[in-house]
């Protein structure tokens, strides 16, 4: 059968998105593939469809539990029952059952930690896999803070001679990181599909302010005058509450979103945003992953992000339907200090090294640092890896370098803020690519007219639906009111 027909049969899509077909064809020929596809381009399909073509399980290594859950949910929505997630959420009993039946699944999601466990490895060695997917493959690189030491060992674990093809996936990666991925995964002359990071339908603009307060006023004015749906990114939880509160008072439909919200609240917000009853989300960078809303028209950064990868990922949530959208960056004098603070906040420092050593001296497992609230989990992972590789003094150097790198990344973002050149060109070049063509209304430097991209706001009265609680119960249980 034609690939297109299979696509339609299993997923109901009529055509491939750019890159998907190329990647899948290579996989079917048995080649290793490295694919860099911007967020929202449909990376997951690159292994989902092969899962139905091969008659052997696909193993997907994925670093984040929430991401894994999201992908499992996504497949279940397509009525796939033979999908499982092997991660630390499972208790010992569940784990044993899953591992025993592992060969029956079509899609096996696994965390790198689990992959290293004897029991799991033994089982995998007895099985024939059709494909090994390494999702978020940039986590393998020591040069990023997303670094997952366990990723380094994937190559050893799956690297025997008659292994199935490896598909390494990531959104964006610099040349250095791409090199690391190929090395550590021991990929065999992989086919590389590198999609342009440029998103021509996202128009880039920035506004400068003297005073931080002025940014809030600007947002209020802007959101009362123009239409969403939109996301406003800011750095702190309190700010998400404060800004959304003001927007609500101004009669707009807005909600705050951050990691401290309870799980029901987070789902309600996503559901409202997707069904269109909620127009604006004011969020920390906790918002976005797993949210597939096609028609986001505006992404506003109230504060500058801490690095270019975040910026790219966050503005990438706009205009997934391919229609025009705008990314607005607001900057007030001194904002970079806060971005730096956020950037290095979770990074371990000399104090952590000292505490780590003290634990060792006391013969206490240093991992207790996490439970004792002395370090974040990510921070510990990095620290622990290096402490096992190098001497204390060398680790100090490594961490100092990482810190400098972090600070350097804020400077990169600042270059976009300060430049009088094309923002798009700078962005694309940062990721080691060349901009082929500037779209109309390209950016603040090339010239942009917001009115041509976003619509003026229609005045709508925003009474919340005054349904009685009895009616609401009826609507939930009986439907169609």
């Amino acid at each position, binding site marked *: 059968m034609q690939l297109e027909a299979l696509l339609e049969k299993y997923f109901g899509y009529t055509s491939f998105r750019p890159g998907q077909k190329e990647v899948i064809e290579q996989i079917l020929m048995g080649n290793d593939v490295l694919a860099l596809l911007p967020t929202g381009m449909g990376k997951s399909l690159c292994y989902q469809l092969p899962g139905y073509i091969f008659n052997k399980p696909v193993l997907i290594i994925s670093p984040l539990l929430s991401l894994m859950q999201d992908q499992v949910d996504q497949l279940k929505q397509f009525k796939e029952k033979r999908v499982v997630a092997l991660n630390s959420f499972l208790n010992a009993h569940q784990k044993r059952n899953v591992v025993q039946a592992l060969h029956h699944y079509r899609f096996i999601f696994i965390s790198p930690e689990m992959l290293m466990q004897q029991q799991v490895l033994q089982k995998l060695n007895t099985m024939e896999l059709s494909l090994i997917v390494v999702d978020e493959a940039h986590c393998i690189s020591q040069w990023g803070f997303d670094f997952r030491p366990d990723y380094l060992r994937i190559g050893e674990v799956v690297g025997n001679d008659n292994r199935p093809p490896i598909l390494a996936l990531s959104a964006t990666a610099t040349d250095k990181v791409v090199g690391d991925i190929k090395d550590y995964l021991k990929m065999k002359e992989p086919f590389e599909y590198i999609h342009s990071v440029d998103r021509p339908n996202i128009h880039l603009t920035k506004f400068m302010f003297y005073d931080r307060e002025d940014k809030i006023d600007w947002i209020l004015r802007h959101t009362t005058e123009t239409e969403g749906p939109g996301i406003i990114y800011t750095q702190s939880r309190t700010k998400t509450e404060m800004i*959304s509160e003001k927007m609500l008072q101004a009669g707009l439909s807005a909600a705050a979103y951050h990691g401290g919200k309870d799980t029901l*609240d987070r789902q309600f917000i996503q559901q409202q945003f997707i069904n269109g009853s909620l127009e604006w989300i004011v969020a920390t960078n906790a918002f976005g992953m797993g949210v597939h809303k096609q028609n986001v028209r505006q992404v506003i950064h109230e504060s500058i992000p801490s690095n270019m990868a975040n910026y790219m990922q966050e503005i990438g949530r706009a205009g997934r339907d391919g229609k025009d959208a705008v990314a607005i960056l607001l900057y007030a004098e001194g904002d970079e200090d806060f971005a730096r603070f956020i950037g290095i906040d979770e990074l371990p420092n000399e104090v952590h090294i000292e505490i780590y050593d003290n634990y060792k001296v006391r013969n206490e497992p240093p991992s207790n640092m996490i439970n004792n609230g002395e370090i974040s989990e990510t921070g510990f992972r990095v620290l622990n890896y290096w402490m096992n590789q190098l001497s204390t003094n060398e680790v100090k150097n490594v961490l100092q370098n990482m810190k400098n790198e972090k600070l350097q990344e804020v400077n990169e973002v600042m270059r976009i803020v300060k430049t009088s050149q094309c923002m798009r060109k700078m962005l694309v070049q940062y990721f080691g690519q060349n901009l082929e063509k500037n779209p109309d209304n390209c950016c603040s430097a090339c010239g942009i007219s917001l009115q041509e991209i976003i619509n003026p706001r229609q005045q709508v009265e925003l009474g919340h639906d005054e349904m009685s*609680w*009895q009616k609401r119960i009826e609507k939930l249980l009986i439907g169609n009111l």
Partner: protein
Amino acid sequence: MIFQQILMQIFHKLNQERTISAPFHLLRGKRSGQTIQDVGIYQLHHFFGILPKLSRKKYDEEISLLIEKQFIRTDEAGSYELMNNHIEDIGNLPFDGWHYRGNEHVFFARLSLIIQSLSHKKAGQMSFIPIQKDEVIQQWVKNFLLINNFQEGTIHEQLMAEMIHSLENTHIEEKVKSIIINRLAGYEVAGFTWQQLSFIEKVSEMDIQLLYIAGLHSWLNSITSQAEQYPLLNNVAQNVRINIPLTGSAFQSTQLFLQGYSIEQISKIRGLKISTIEDHIVELAMNEPHFSIEQFISGRDVQLVLNAIEDYNTKKLKVLHEVLPHLTYFQLRLVLARGDL
């Protein structure tokens, strides 16, 4: 505001005899002897454990506000003093923390997943992302739906009728009923966030949550007291209400006691201190209205204790013991545990 009023009600009941932290432990439902006994002594059952996740930071913030507004004054030792300023009283919200202790959230989680499932079923949408992530809840709901033959589609109407009828017979404000129902979601019906509810009702998010919890307690009491009228809901409320609220160890001691063993014997059998067993008996006295304390203290002595409480306006054990030295602390605590003084 509701939160501060609750704090003030607790401070009043504690009669300036406990520290500024006592309400914190009470609200979080701390299972220490001290907190549990205070519940009986000061009749604080309904507030026990209504906010199991209350953070110290949040609590301290609210206390600072009370101090700022001059409702209370504190000293370095951690005790507090009530000032003459009176906070506007909200009356009694129908909390029943003693019997639920956070389990009301289990009830609601089950209900919300049931509703979400039935709502999608009705719309012919068999796959959706479950709104409750807890595996135990998911498993429970799966069983519930199977046992009640949800495929046949008759459970929808029955559940609707039970919900509407039981809520109509629950004595809480209409807005509280709306708050609870607005936290449910289904096919193409999104729930309301706390922030949105707070904006609609014009009270803080904390207060909305308190209204919600009080509302759930009240609703659950209607459901469980009329079990035969609401078979489905009563099933959803399974094991949610704690009818004899005793902690594990106290439960074991009192079991032995009710089998006829003496305090000394229980102490030997269980290898626990006499005073610990006494704590357990006091807990039993507090929780079991039919338990007679007269086996430990004569009616005349009980009256003496009650008089002393009245005369000296205190429930402090130390003071009472000075006034009535012939009674043991254990006897005094039993009288206090009876509470309804």
